Protein backbone atom coordinates (compact mmCIF):
# COMPACT_ATOMS: atom_id res chain seq x y z
CA UNK A 1 0.00 0.00 0.00
CA UNK A 2 2.81 2.38 0.82
CA UNK A 3 3.91 2.19 -2.78
CA UNK A 4 0.51 3.29 -4.06
CA UNK A 5 0.48 6.27 -1.74
CA UNK A 6 3.88 7.25 -3.05
CA UNK A 7 2.70 6.96 -6.65
CA UNK A 8 -0.31 9.07 -5.81
CA UNK A 9 1.90 11.71 -4.23
CA UNK A 10 4.12 11.82 -7.28
CA UNK A 11 1.11 12.19 -9.54
CA UNK A 12 -0.45 14.90 -7.43
CA UNK A 13 2.79 16.81 -7.15
CA UNK A 14 3.16 16.49 -10.92
CA UNK A 15 -0.36 17.81 -11.40
CA UNK A 16 0.50 20.83 -9.30
CA UNK A 17 3.61 21.62 -11.31
CA UNK A 18 1.45 21.06 -14.36
CA UNK A 19 -0.98 23.72 -13.16
CA UNK A 20 1.89 26.21 -13.14
CA UNK A 21 2.93 25.25 -16.65
CA UNK A 22 -0.68 25.47 -17.73
CA UNK A 23 -0.97 29.00 -16.36
CA UNK A 24 1.97 30.22 -18.42
CA UNK A 25 0.78 28.30 -21.49
CA UNK A 26 -2.66 29.83 -21.06
CA UNK A 27 -1.20 33.32 -21.40
CA UNK A 28 0.49 32.23 -24.63
CA UNK A 29 -2.69 30.74 -26.04
CA UNK A 30 -4.76 33.86 -25.40
CA UNK A 31 -2.40 36.08 -27.36
CA UNK A 32 -1.69 33.54 -30.07
CA UNK A 33 -5.34 32.79 -30.67
CA UNK A 34 -6.34 36.42 -30.96
CA UNK A 35 -3.43 37.77 -32.94
CA UNK A 36 -1.32 34.90 -34.24
CA UNK A 37 1.61 36.31 -32.27
CA UNK A 38 3.81 33.87 -30.44
CA UNK A 39 4.61 35.94 -27.38
CA UNK A 40 8.09 35.00 -26.33
CA UNK A 41 7.82 37.49 -23.46
CA UNK A 42 5.02 35.61 -21.68
CA UNK A 43 7.39 34.06 -19.12
CA UNK A 44 9.10 37.39 -18.49
CA UNK A 45 5.72 38.99 -18.00
CA UNK A 46 5.09 36.51 -15.17
CA UNK A 47 8.46 37.44 -13.70
CA UNK A 48 7.80 41.14 -14.10
CA UNK A 49 4.41 40.82 -12.42
CA UNK A 50 5.89 38.92 -9.49
CA UNK A 51 8.65 41.52 -9.12
CA UNK A 52 6.14 44.36 -9.13
CA UNK A 53 3.97 42.59 -6.60
CA UNK A 54 6.96 41.98 -4.36
CA UNK A 55 7.81 45.65 -4.61
CA UNK A 56 4.42 46.68 -3.29
CA UNK A 57 4.69 44.28 -0.37
CA UNK A 58 8.30 44.57 0.79
CA UNK A 59 10.08 47.22 2.80
CA UNK A 60 13.12 47.16 0.56
CA UNK A 61 11.12 48.11 -2.55
CA UNK A 62 10.65 51.36 -4.47
CA UNK A 63 7.13 51.76 -3.33
CA UNK A 64 8.19 51.81 0.31
CA UNK A 65 11.10 54.11 -0.47
CA UNK A 66 8.80 56.63 -2.15
CA UNK A 67 5.66 56.45 -0.04
CA UNK A 68 7.00 55.19 3.28
CA UNK A 69 4.50 52.35 3.62
CA UNK A 70 3.78 49.01 2.01
CA UNK A 71 0.48 47.84 0.57
CA UNK A 72 -1.59 45.08 2.13
CA UNK A 73 -1.85 41.96 -0.05
CA UNK A 74 -5.47 42.55 -1.02
CA UNK A 75 -4.52 45.94 -2.45
CA UNK A 76 -1.11 44.98 -3.86
CA UNK A 77 -2.56 42.29 -6.13
CA UNK A 78 -5.06 44.53 -7.92
CA UNK A 79 -2.41 47.27 -8.08
CA UNK A 80 -0.09 44.83 -9.85
CA UNK A 81 -2.98 43.82 -12.11
CA UNK A 82 -3.32 47.49 -13.01
CA UNK A 83 0.38 47.65 -13.81
CA UNK A 84 -0.05 44.71 -16.17
CA UNK A 85 -2.92 46.52 -17.91
CA UNK A 86 -0.79 49.64 -18.28
CA UNK A 87 2.03 47.48 -19.59
CA UNK A 88 -0.33 45.98 -22.18
CA UNK A 89 -1.36 49.45 -23.23
CA UNK A 90 2.24 50.61 -23.54
CA UNK A 91 3.14 47.50 -25.57
CA UNK A 92 0.23 48.17 -27.93
CA UNK A 93 1.19 51.82 -28.36
CA UNK A 94 4.89 51.32 -28.83
CA UNK A 95 5.20 47.95 -30.53
CA UNK A 96 2.07 46.23 -31.78
CA UNK A 97 0.45 49.22 -33.40
CA UNK A 98 3.33 49.51 -35.82
CA UNK A 99 3.81 45.85 -36.40
CA UNK A 100 0.46 44.08 -36.66
CA UNK A 101 0.50 44.25 -40.42
CA UNK A 102 3.95 42.68 -40.62
CA UNK A 103 4.38 38.99 -40.97
CA UNK A 104 4.57 36.60 -38.05
CA UNK A 105 8.30 36.16 -37.83
CA UNK A 106 8.80 39.90 -37.40
CA UNK A 107 6.23 39.97 -34.64
CA UNK A 108 7.91 37.03 -32.98
CA UNK A 109 11.23 38.86 -33.10
CA UNK A 110 9.54 41.88 -31.60
CA UNK A 111 8.36 39.82 -28.64
CA UNK A 112 11.88 38.49 -28.14
CA UNK A 113 13.02 42.09 -27.98
CA UNK A 114 10.21 42.80 -25.57
CA UNK A 115 11.33 39.92 -23.36
CA UNK A 116 14.83 41.39 -23.12
CA UNK A 117 13.52 44.87 -22.43
CA UNK A 118 11.22 43.64 -19.67
CA UNK A 119 13.89 41.47 -18.14
CA UNK A 120 16.39 44.32 -18.20
CA UNK A 121 13.82 46.70 -16.78
CA UNK A 122 13.02 44.23 -14.01
CA UNK A 123 16.68 43.88 -13.21
CA UNK A 124 17.34 47.63 -13.12
CA UNK A 125 14.22 48.46 -11.13
CA UNK A 126 14.13 45.59 -8.69
CA UNK A 127 17.55 43.95 -8.68
CA UNK A 128 18.34 40.38 -9.53
CA UNK A 129 18.49 38.71 -6.13
CA UNK A 130 15.95 36.03 -5.21
CA UNK A 131 13.02 37.56 -3.37
CA UNK A 132 10.75 35.59 -1.09
CA UNK A 133 7.16 36.29 -2.04
CA UNK A 134 4.76 35.83 0.84
CA UNK A 135 1.15 36.67 0.21
CA UNK A 136 -0.07 34.67 3.16
CA UNK A 137 -0.64 31.33 1.48
CA UNK A 138 -0.18 28.75 4.27
CA UNK A 139 3.11 26.93 3.99
CA UNK A 140 3.86 23.28 4.56
CA UNK A 141 1.84 20.15 4.03
CA UNK A 142 -1.87 19.92 4.53
CA UNK A 143 -2.33 18.33 7.97
CA UNK A 144 -5.81 17.24 7.10
CA UNK A 145 -4.73 15.18 4.10
CA UNK A 146 -1.78 13.82 6.05
CA UNK A 147 -3.97 12.71 8.97
CA UNK A 148 -6.86 11.30 7.02
CA UNK A 149 -5.27 9.89 3.89
CA UNK A 150 -1.63 9.74 4.83
CA UNK A 151 -0.90 11.97 1.80
CA UNK A 152 1.82 14.59 1.84
CA UNK A 153 0.70 17.52 -0.27
CA UNK A 154 1.81 21.15 0.01
CA UNK A 155 -0.98 23.56 0.88
CA UNK A 156 0.50 26.02 -1.59
CA UNK A 157 -0.03 23.52 -4.38
CA UNK A 158 -3.63 22.98 -3.43
CA UNK A 159 -4.10 26.72 -3.34
CA UNK A 160 -2.46 27.11 -6.74
CA UNK A 161 -4.69 24.46 -8.29
CA UNK A 162 -7.80 26.05 -6.80
CA UNK A 163 -6.82 29.51 -8.04
CA UNK A 164 -6.04 28.21 -11.51
CA UNK A 165 -9.43 26.49 -11.63
CA UNK A 166 -11.21 29.69 -10.63
CA UNK A 167 -9.21 31.66 -13.17
CA UNK A 168 -10.14 29.28 -15.97
CA UNK A 169 -13.83 29.43 -15.07
CA UNK A 170 -13.75 33.22 -14.96
CA UNK A 171 -12.00 33.34 -18.33
CA UNK A 172 -14.50 30.91 -19.83
CA UNK A 173 -17.39 33.08 -18.67
CA UNK A 174 -15.65 36.17 -19.98
CA UNK A 175 -15.10 34.64 -23.41
CA UNK A 176 -18.47 32.95 -23.77
CA UNK A 177 -20.85 35.37 -22.13
CA UNK A 178 -19.66 38.93 -22.62
CA UNK A 179 -19.72 41.26 -25.58
CA UNK A 180 -15.98 41.86 -25.43
CA UNK A 181 -15.31 38.14 -25.03
CA UNK A 182 -17.38 37.44 -28.13
CA UNK A 183 -15.50 40.13 -30.02
CA UNK A 184 -12.21 38.54 -28.97
CA UNK A 185 -13.32 35.19 -30.36
CA UNK A 186 -14.48 36.91 -33.51
CA UNK A 187 -11.08 38.54 -33.95
CA UNK A 188 -9.42 35.16 -33.41
CA UNK A 189 -11.55 33.73 -36.22
CA UNK A 190 -11.24 36.51 -38.78
CA UNK A 191 -9.49 39.84 -38.22
CA UNK A 192 -10.86 41.48 -41.29
CA UNK A 193 -14.44 40.51 -40.69
CA UNK A 194 -14.13 41.74 -37.11
CA UNK A 195 -12.82 45.02 -38.42
CA UNK A 196 -15.71 45.22 -40.88
CA UNK A 197 -18.34 45.02 -38.13
CA UNK A 198 -16.60 47.81 -36.26
CA UNK A 199 -14.45 45.96 -33.75
CA UNK A 200 -11.48 48.18 -33.10
CA UNK A 201 -8.42 46.00 -33.19
CA UNK A 202 -6.16 48.39 -31.24
CA UNK A 203 -8.50 48.11 -28.32
CA UNK A 204 -8.71 44.34 -28.67
CA UNK A 205 -4.90 44.00 -28.51
CA UNK A 206 -4.80 45.97 -25.28
CA UNK A 207 -7.52 43.78 -23.80
CA UNK A 208 -5.89 40.53 -24.90
CA UNK A 209 -2.49 41.54 -23.58
CA UNK A 210 -4.06 42.75 -20.34
CA UNK A 211 -5.88 39.47 -19.79
CA UNK A 212 -2.74 37.61 -20.61
CA UNK A 213 -0.77 39.90 -18.27
CA UNK A 214 -3.17 39.10 -15.47
CA UNK A 215 -2.83 35.39 -16.15
CA UNK A 216 0.94 35.98 -16.00
CA UNK A 217 0.46 37.69 -12.65
CA UNK A 218 -1.33 34.66 -11.25
CA UNK A 219 1.41 32.40 -12.60
CA UNK A 220 4.04 34.74 -11.14
CA UNK A 221 2.38 34.70 -7.73
CA UNK A 222 2.29 30.92 -7.63
CA UNK A 223 5.85 30.34 -8.82
CA UNK A 224 7.12 33.18 -6.68
CA UNK A 225 5.44 31.79 -3.57
CA UNK A 226 6.85 28.39 -4.29
CA UNK A 227 10.45 29.12 -5.10
CA UNK A 228 10.93 32.85 -4.59
CA UNK A 229 10.83 35.53 -7.25
CA UNK A 230 13.91 34.95 -9.36
CA UNK A 231 14.99 35.47 -12.91
CA UNK A 232 14.93 31.78 -13.73
CA UNK A 233 11.16 32.25 -13.62
CA UNK A 234 11.32 33.57 -17.14
CA UNK A 235 12.67 30.19 -18.19
CA UNK A 236 9.37 28.48 -17.48
CA UNK A 237 8.36 30.08 -20.75
CA UNK A 238 10.51 27.43 -22.37
CA UNK A 239 8.58 24.69 -20.58
CA UNK A 240 5.38 26.20 -21.89
CA UNK A 241 6.49 25.50 -25.44
CA UNK A 242 6.17 21.70 -25.18
CA UNK A 243 2.91 22.24 -23.32
CA UNK A 244 1.63 24.21 -26.29
CA UNK A 245 2.81 21.64 -28.78
CA UNK A 246 0.94 19.01 -26.81
CA UNK A 247 -2.21 20.99 -26.28
CA UNK A 248 -2.35 22.94 -29.52
CA UNK A 249 -1.49 26.62 -29.75
CA UNK A 250 -5.04 27.82 -29.97
CA UNK A 251 -6.78 25.72 -27.37
CA UNK A 252 -7.44 26.86 -23.82
CA UNK A 253 -8.41 23.37 -22.60
CA UNK A 254 -5.35 22.14 -24.51
CA UNK A 255 -3.05 24.41 -22.52
CA UNK A 256 -4.49 23.08 -19.30
CA UNK A 257 -4.48 19.39 -20.17
CA UNK A 258 -1.08 19.73 -21.86
CA UNK A 259 0.34 21.40 -18.76
CA UNK A 260 -1.00 18.66 -16.51
CA UNK A 261 0.28 15.85 -18.74
CA UNK A 262 3.76 17.34 -18.87
CA UNK A 263 3.79 18.08 -15.16
CA UNK A 264 2.79 14.52 -14.25
CA UNK A 265 4.80 12.92 -17.04
CA UNK A 266 8.08 14.50 -16.05
CA UNK A 267 7.63 13.67 -12.38
CA UNK A 268 6.80 10.06 -13.13
CA UNK A 269 9.70 9.80 -15.56
CA UNK A 270 12.05 11.32 -13.02
CA UNK A 271 10.98 8.91 -10.29
CA UNK A 272 10.65 5.69 -12.28
CA UNK A 273 13.03 6.02 -15.22
CA UNK A 274 15.40 8.60 -13.77
CA UNK A 275 17.43 6.22 -11.59
CA UNK A 276 18.11 4.04 -14.63
CA UNK A 277 19.65 6.83 -16.69
CA UNK A 278 21.18 8.84 -13.92
CA UNK A 279 18.40 11.34 -13.28
CA UNK A 280 17.66 14.85 -14.56
CA UNK A 281 14.98 13.52 -16.88
CA UNK A 282 12.71 16.25 -15.59
CA UNK A 283 14.73 18.75 -17.58
CA UNK A 284 14.25 17.23 -20.97
CA UNK A 285 11.29 14.88 -20.74
CA UNK A 286 8.85 17.58 -21.85
CA UNK A 287 10.85 18.31 -24.99
CA UNK A 288 11.04 14.64 -25.95
CA UNK A 289 7.32 14.30 -25.53
CA UNK A 290 6.77 17.41 -27.63
CA UNK A 291 9.04 16.04 -30.32
CA UNK A 292 7.03 12.84 -30.44
CA UNK A 293 3.89 14.90 -30.82
CA UNK A 294 5.37 16.99 -33.60
CA UNK A 295 6.06 13.78 -35.46
CA UNK A 296 2.75 12.07 -34.95
CA UNK A 297 0.15 14.68 -34.15
CA UNK A 298 1.40 18.14 -35.11
CA UNK A 299 -1.89 19.90 -34.42
CA UNK A 300 -1.69 18.83 -30.77
CA UNK A 301 -4.34 17.14 -28.69
CA UNK A 302 -6.86 19.93 -29.02
CA UNK A 303 -5.59 21.76 -32.07
CA UNK A 304 -8.32 23.80 -33.63
CA UNK A 305 -10.43 21.79 -35.98
CA UNK A 306 -10.13 23.33 -39.39
CA UNK A 307 -13.56 23.72 -40.87
CA UNK A 308 -13.20 22.74 -44.48
CA UNK A 309 -16.71 23.19 -45.72
CA UNK A 310 -17.35 26.50 -47.37
Amino acid at each position, binding site marked *: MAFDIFLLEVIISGLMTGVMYALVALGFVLIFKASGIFNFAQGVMALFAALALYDFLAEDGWFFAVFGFTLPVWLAIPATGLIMVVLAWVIERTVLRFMVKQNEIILFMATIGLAFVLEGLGDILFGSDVKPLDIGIPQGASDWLLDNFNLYIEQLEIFAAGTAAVLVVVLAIFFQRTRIGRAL*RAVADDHQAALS*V*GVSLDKIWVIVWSVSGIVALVAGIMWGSKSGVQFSLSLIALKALPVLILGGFTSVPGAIVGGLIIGVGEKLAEVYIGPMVGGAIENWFAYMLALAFLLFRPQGLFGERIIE*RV
Partner: protein
Amino acid sequence: MSAVAETNSESLLVVNNIEVIYDHVILVLKGVSLEVMEGGVVALLGANGAGKSTTLKAISNLLGAERGDVTKGTITFKGEDVHSLTPNELVRRGVIQVMEGRHCFEHLTVEENLLTGAYTRKDGRKGISDDLELVYQYFPRLKERRTSQAGYTSGGEQQMLAVGRALMARPTVILLDEPSMGLAPQLVEEIFEIVKRLNEAEGVTFLLAEQNTTMALRYANYGYILENGRVVMDGEASALAENEDVKEFYLGVSGEGRRSFRNVKAYRRRKRWLS
Protein backbone atom coordinates in the same frame (compact mmCIF):
# COMPACT_ATOMS: atom_id res chain seq x y z
CA MET B 1 -17.69 59.37 -69.25
CA SER B 2 -16.88 59.65 -65.58
CA ALA B 3 -19.63 60.68 -63.29
CA VAL B 4 -18.87 64.08 -61.95
CA ALA B 5 -20.16 63.97 -58.44
CA GLU B 6 -22.21 67.05 -58.01
CA THR B 7 -23.20 67.08 -54.43
CA ASN B 8 -26.89 66.60 -54.57
CA SER B 9 -28.86 67.41 -51.46
CA GLU B 10 -30.22 63.87 -51.46
CA SER B 11 -26.97 62.09 -52.05
CA LEU B 12 -25.94 60.06 -49.08
CA LEU B 13 -22.55 58.93 -50.19
CA VAL B 14 -20.28 60.70 -52.63
CA VAL B 15 -17.00 59.31 -53.86
CA ASN B 16 -15.16 61.98 -55.76
CA ASN B 17 -12.29 61.13 -58.05
CA ILE B 18 -10.41 58.82 -55.69
CA GLU B 19 -7.12 57.17 -56.36
CA VAL B 20 -6.08 54.09 -54.40
CA ILE B 21 -2.58 52.72 -54.09
CA TYR B 22 -1.63 49.40 -52.48
CA ASP B 23 1.76 48.89 -50.86
CA HIS B 24 2.76 52.44 -51.82
CA VAL B 25 3.29 51.44 -55.45
CA ILE B 26 0.40 49.50 -56.95
CA LEU B 27 -2.03 52.01 -58.42
CA VAL B 28 -5.43 50.33 -58.55
CA LEU B 29 -8.10 53.04 -58.68
CA LYS B 30 -7.35 55.86 -61.08
CA GLY B 31 -9.98 58.42 -60.31
CA VAL B 32 -13.27 56.76 -59.41
CA SER B 33 -16.33 58.89 -58.77
CA LEU B 34 -19.76 57.74 -57.81
CA GLU B 35 -22.79 58.86 -55.95
CA VAL B 36 -25.35 56.97 -53.91
CA MET B 37 -28.75 58.49 -53.16
CA GLU B 38 -30.46 57.93 -49.88
CA GLY B 39 -32.71 54.88 -50.24
CA GLY B 40 -31.12 53.79 -53.50
CA VAL B 41 -29.74 50.50 -54.70
CA VAL B 42 -26.61 51.24 -56.72
CA ALA B 43 -24.70 48.58 -58.61
CA LEU B 44 -20.97 48.70 -59.15
CA LEU B 45 -20.25 46.44 -62.08
CA GLY B 46 -17.16 45.20 -63.80
CA ALA B 47 -15.02 42.19 -64.46
CA ASN B 48 -12.78 40.49 -61.97
CA GLY B 49 -9.95 42.80 -60.96
CA ALA B 50 -11.66 45.97 -62.14
CA GLY B 51 -11.45 47.55 -58.69
CA LYS B 52 -14.96 47.02 -57.28
CA SER B 53 -13.85 45.61 -53.95
CA THR B 54 -11.15 48.24 -53.65
CA THR B 55 -13.74 50.96 -54.13
CA LEU B 56 -15.97 49.52 -51.40
CA LYS B 57 -13.02 49.09 -49.06
CA ALA B 58 -11.94 52.65 -49.68
CA ILE B 59 -15.36 53.77 -48.46
CA SER B 60 -15.50 51.47 -45.41
CA ASN B 61 -11.80 52.10 -44.78
CA LEU B 62 -10.96 48.42 -44.61
CA LEU B 63 -8.14 49.32 -46.98
CA GLY B 64 -5.88 50.26 -44.11
CA ALA B 65 -5.62 46.65 -42.99
CA GLU B 66 -4.48 45.68 -46.49
CA ARG B 67 -1.87 48.37 -46.82
CA GLY B 68 -3.98 50.30 -49.26
CA ASP B 69 -4.26 54.07 -49.23
CA VAL B 70 -6.61 56.62 -50.70
CA THR B 71 -4.08 59.06 -52.10
CA LYS B 72 -6.37 61.45 -53.94
CA GLY B 73 -9.97 62.51 -54.00
CA THR B 74 -12.62 62.72 -51.32
CA ILE B 75 -15.29 60.53 -49.81
CA THR B 76 -18.22 62.15 -48.09
CA PHE B 77 -21.08 60.58 -46.20
CA LYS B 78 -24.06 62.74 -45.29
CA GLY B 79 -22.03 65.69 -46.41
CA GLU B 80 -19.11 65.03 -44.07
CA ASP B 81 -15.64 63.98 -45.12
CA VAL B 82 -15.20 60.45 -43.87
CA HIS B 83 -12.07 59.37 -45.64
CA SER B 84 -9.87 59.31 -42.55
CA LEU B 85 -12.32 57.65 -40.18
CA THR B 86 -11.69 54.18 -38.77
CA PRO B 87 -14.03 51.32 -39.72
CA ASN B 88 -15.28 51.39 -36.15
CA GLU B 89 -16.29 55.04 -36.48
CA LEU B 90 -17.86 54.43 -39.91
CA VAL B 91 -19.95 51.54 -38.61
CA ARG B 92 -21.15 53.78 -35.78
CA ARG B 93 -22.20 56.38 -38.34
CA GLY B 94 -24.07 53.83 -40.44
CA VAL B 95 -21.66 52.63 -43.13
CA ILE B 96 -20.94 48.91 -43.05
CA GLN B 97 -19.40 46.53 -45.55
CA VAL B 98 -20.30 42.91 -46.20
CA MET B 99 -17.07 41.56 -47.58
CA GLU B 100 -16.61 39.43 -50.63
CA GLY B 101 -16.53 35.77 -49.63
CA ARG B 102 -18.89 36.47 -46.67
CA HIS B 103 -16.26 36.18 -43.93
CA CYS B 104 -18.46 34.72 -41.22
CA PHE B 105 -16.86 33.89 -37.90
CA GLU B 106 -16.55 30.15 -38.41
CA HIS B 107 -16.25 29.03 -34.84
CA LEU B 108 -18.99 31.28 -33.52
CA THR B 109 -22.60 30.18 -33.69
CA VAL B 110 -24.98 31.81 -36.14
CA GLU B 111 -26.55 33.84 -33.38
CA GLU B 112 -23.17 34.91 -31.98
CA ASN B 113 -22.19 36.03 -35.47
CA LEU B 114 -25.29 38.19 -35.62
CA LEU B 115 -24.57 39.64 -32.20
CA THR B 116 -21.06 40.69 -33.21
CA GLY B 117 -22.79 42.91 -35.76
CA ALA B 118 -24.21 44.86 -32.84
CA TYR B 119 -20.76 45.38 -31.35
CA THR B 120 -20.70 49.15 -31.79
CA ARG B 121 -24.24 49.73 -30.56
CA LYS B 122 -24.90 51.46 -27.31
CA ASP B 123 -28.68 51.28 -27.18
CA GLY B 124 -28.96 48.33 -24.84
CA ARG B 125 -30.21 44.77 -24.83
CA LYS B 126 -33.79 45.48 -25.80
CA GLY B 127 -32.98 47.16 -29.10
CA ILE B 128 -30.49 44.47 -29.98
CA SER B 129 -32.80 41.56 -29.24
CA ASP B 130 -35.60 43.26 -31.21
CA ASP B 131 -33.30 43.56 -34.19
CA LEU B 132 -32.24 39.96 -33.81
CA GLU B 133 -35.90 38.99 -34.19
CA LEU B 134 -36.18 41.27 -37.20
CA VAL B 135 -33.18 39.62 -38.86
CA TYR B 136 -34.71 36.22 -38.15
CA GLN B 137 -37.91 37.40 -39.83
CA TYR B 138 -36.02 38.25 -42.98
CA PHE B 139 -33.89 35.12 -42.79
CA PRO B 140 -35.98 32.36 -41.18
CA ARG B 141 -33.27 29.87 -42.11
CA LEU B 142 -30.84 31.58 -39.81
CA LYS B 143 -33.27 31.16 -36.96
CA GLU B 144 -33.40 27.43 -37.56
CA ARG B 145 -29.63 27.30 -37.46
CA ARG B 146 -29.04 29.79 -34.70
CA THR B 147 -27.01 27.42 -32.53
CA SER B 148 -24.93 25.88 -35.34
CA GLN B 149 -21.35 26.93 -35.83
CA ALA B 150 -21.26 29.27 -38.79
CA GLY B 151 -18.46 27.28 -40.42
CA TYR B 152 -20.82 24.36 -40.85
CA THR B 153 -23.59 26.26 -42.62
CA SER B 154 -24.04 26.35 -46.40
CA GLY B 155 -22.77 29.07 -48.71
CA GLY B 156 -26.22 30.58 -49.06
CA GLU B 157 -26.75 30.58 -45.33
CA GLN B 158 -23.37 32.22 -44.82
CA GLN B 159 -24.28 34.97 -47.26
CA MET B 160 -27.54 35.55 -45.40
CA LEU B 161 -25.62 35.53 -42.15
CA ALA B 162 -23.15 38.10 -43.44
CA VAL B 163 -26.00 40.40 -44.50
CA GLY B 164 -27.90 39.76 -41.26
CA ARG B 165 -24.80 40.52 -39.22
CA ALA B 166 -24.41 43.85 -41.01
CA LEU B 167 -28.09 44.64 -40.38
CA MET B 168 -27.51 44.20 -36.67
CA ALA B 169 -25.42 47.37 -36.75
CA ARG B 170 -28.53 49.32 -37.86
CA PRO B 171 -26.74 50.69 -40.90
CA THR B 172 -27.82 53.48 -43.21
CA VAL B 173 -25.92 52.01 -46.11
CA ILE B 174 -24.61 48.50 -46.70
CA LEU B 175 -21.68 48.03 -49.05
CA LEU B 176 -22.40 44.55 -50.34
CA ASP B 177 -19.54 42.87 -52.16
CA GLU B 178 -20.42 40.09 -54.63
CA PRO B 179 -23.33 38.50 -52.80
CA SER B 180 -23.92 36.13 -55.74
CA MET B 181 -20.43 34.67 -55.72
CA GLY B 182 -20.47 30.89 -55.79
CA LEU B 183 -24.20 30.56 -55.21
CA ALA B 184 -26.77 28.68 -57.25
CA PRO B 185 -28.97 30.98 -59.41
CA GLN B 186 -32.02 30.27 -57.28
CA LEU B 187 -30.21 31.33 -54.13
CA VAL B 188 -28.84 34.42 -55.81
CA GLU B 189 -32.37 35.42 -56.65
CA GLU B 190 -33.47 34.78 -53.08
CA ILE B 191 -30.69 36.98 -51.71
CA PHE B 192 -31.46 39.80 -54.14
CA GLU B 193 -35.15 39.60 -53.25
CA ILE B 194 -34.24 40.09 -49.60
CA VAL B 195 -32.00 43.02 -50.50
CA LYS B 196 -34.95 44.56 -52.27
CA ARG B 197 -37.26 44.05 -49.31
CA LEU B 198 -34.70 45.46 -46.90
CA ASN B 199 -34.34 48.47 -49.14
CA GLU B 200 -38.08 49.04 -49.43
CA ALA B 201 -39.27 48.10 -45.96
CA GLU B 202 -36.32 49.04 -43.78
CA GLY B 203 -35.01 51.90 -45.89
CA VAL B 204 -31.49 50.50 -46.08
CA THR B 205 -29.42 51.95 -48.92
CA PHE B 206 -27.24 49.52 -50.87
CA LEU B 207 -24.09 49.90 -52.88
CA LEU B 208 -23.45 46.49 -54.35
CA ALA B 209 -20.48 45.24 -56.27
CA GLU B 210 -21.36 42.46 -58.69
CA GLN B 211 -20.02 40.49 -61.60
CA ASN B 212 -23.46 39.09 -62.15
CA THR B 213 -24.54 42.06 -64.24
CA THR B 214 -27.94 40.70 -65.25
CA MET B 215 -29.08 40.17 -61.72
CA ALA B 216 -27.57 43.37 -60.37
CA LEU B 217 -29.16 45.55 -63.04
CA ARG B 218 -32.51 43.91 -62.44
CA TYR B 219 -32.51 45.00 -58.80
CA ALA B 220 -30.56 48.26 -58.87
CA ASN B 221 -31.82 51.73 -59.78
CA TYR B 222 -28.47 53.00 -60.95
CA GLY B 223 -25.25 51.42 -62.11
CA TYR B 224 -21.58 52.22 -62.62
CA ILE B 225 -19.31 50.14 -64.78
CA LEU B 226 -15.75 49.94 -63.67
CA GLU B 227 -12.88 48.88 -65.82
CA ASN B 228 -9.25 48.92 -64.90
CA GLY B 229 -9.78 51.24 -61.97
CA ARG B 230 -11.90 53.74 -63.88
CA VAL B 231 -15.60 54.32 -64.27
CA VAL B 232 -16.23 53.81 -67.98
CA MET B 233 -19.98 54.14 -67.99
CA ASP B 234 -22.83 54.95 -65.69
CA GLY B 235 -26.55 55.40 -65.90
CA GLU B 236 -30.00 54.30 -64.85
CA ALA B 237 -30.03 50.54 -64.42
CA SER B 238 -32.71 50.12 -67.06
CA ALA B 239 -30.72 52.21 -69.54
CA LEU B 240 -27.55 50.23 -68.89
CA ALA B 241 -29.41 46.98 -69.37
CA GLU B 242 -30.48 48.21 -72.81
CA ASN B 243 -27.11 49.63 -73.79
CA GLU B 244 -25.54 47.78 -76.71
CA ASP B 245 -22.01 47.76 -75.29
CA VAL B 246 -23.16 46.55 -71.93
CA LYS B 247 -25.29 43.90 -73.57
CA GLU B 248 -22.45 42.68 -75.67
CA PHE B 249 -19.68 42.87 -73.16
CA TYR B 250 -21.25 42.26 -69.79
CA LEU B 251 -24.55 40.60 -70.45
CA GLY B 252 -23.44 38.37 -73.30
CA VAL B 253 -25.51 37.97 -76.41
CA SER B 254 -27.20 34.89 -75.07
CA GLY B 255 -27.77 36.59 -71.74
CA GLU B 256 -25.73 34.17 -69.68
CA GLY B 257 -23.41 36.92 -68.50
CA ARG B 258 -20.18 35.45 -69.84
CA ARG B 259 -17.94 36.90 -72.48
CA SER B 260 -15.63 35.38 -74.96
CA PHE B 261 -12.20 36.64 -75.87
CA ARG B 262 -13.49 37.85 -79.22
CA ASN B 263 -16.06 40.01 -77.51
CA VAL B 264 -13.39 41.59 -75.42
CA LYS B 265 -11.39 42.54 -78.47
CA ALA B 266 -14.37 43.89 -80.33
CA TYR B 267 -15.35 45.92 -77.33
CA ARG B 268 -11.87 47.35 -76.87
CA ARG B 269 -11.74 48.32 -80.51
CA ARG B 270 -15.06 50.03 -80.36
CA LYS B 271 -14.13 51.88 -77.22
CA ARG B 272 -10.90 53.17 -78.67
CA TRP B 273 -12.95 54.49 -81.53
CA LEU B 274 -15.45 56.18 -79.36
CA SER B 275 -12.99 57.93 -77.14
